[in-house]
């Protein structure tokens, strides 16, 4: 499960995940995801547009990262490409009501700073 990040500005970091966030893959990235989300200066966009499978373990990793970001001030949002599987998982677990979800990159970056 590749994980990359890019600081888009002094205040927004984009963390990009790709491939399968299944149980095994999620365990591999959970700690690094939380660390990257926490060490960002303020806003974080987690880009899930290249994720093809999202498990409950992946959801837990996202929630942990968002809580860590919030505890340090700032906000984490999710960027999706509208693919049925990832969006359906977010909706089925109610995570879309806890972590804002966007399918537009610009909107996601603005929301991360809101």
């Amino acid at each position, binding site marked *: 499960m590749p994980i990359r990040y890019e600081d888009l500005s002094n205040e927004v970091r984009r963390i990009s995940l790709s491939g399968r966030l299944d*149980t095994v893959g999620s365990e591999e990235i959970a700690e690094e995801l939380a660390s990257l989300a926490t060490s960002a200066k303020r806003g974080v966009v987690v880009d899930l547009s290249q994720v093809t499978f999202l*498990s409950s373990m992946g959801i837990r990793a996202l929630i942990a990262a968002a809580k860590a970001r919030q505890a340090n001030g700032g906000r984490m949002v999710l960027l999706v490409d509208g693919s049925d599987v990832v969006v359906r998982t977010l909706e089925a677990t*109610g995570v879309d009501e806890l972590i804002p979800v966007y399918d537009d990159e610009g909107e996601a970056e603005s929301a991360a700073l809101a």
Partner: protein
Amino acid sequence: MWLESAALGEGVPGDQILRLDHCLDEALANVISHGGPVALTSLVLLRLVVRRGRGISTADLLIVDEGLEFDASVLPSGPLPRPTSLAEANPGGLGLAMMRAFSDDLSYRRVDGRNHLTISVTWTETT
């Protein structure tokens, strides 16, 4: 991967395989997390059966493990309660919520000291 190979061999459409894949990942995670020591050292049996009717097909994925008995009575039969804020989110029960969301039917039985979980997905055959 076994599921994809077996399901393709039975003519299960790709989108239905993905639904089963999600459920299987969650079910096996539950076995590992909640099945106890015996579950970690014993084999898990997987079996896929496809039933075909008049334009309607169903794939039943049976998962048999030797872990601790699952106490279904502790779970609400309806929708699982959801946290209303990130601060209070304590994401237990997500796996079950996902299995319910991605399957058309879930059935559980305890047989001869083993857990039998059957996950079913149904689709309409296109000609």
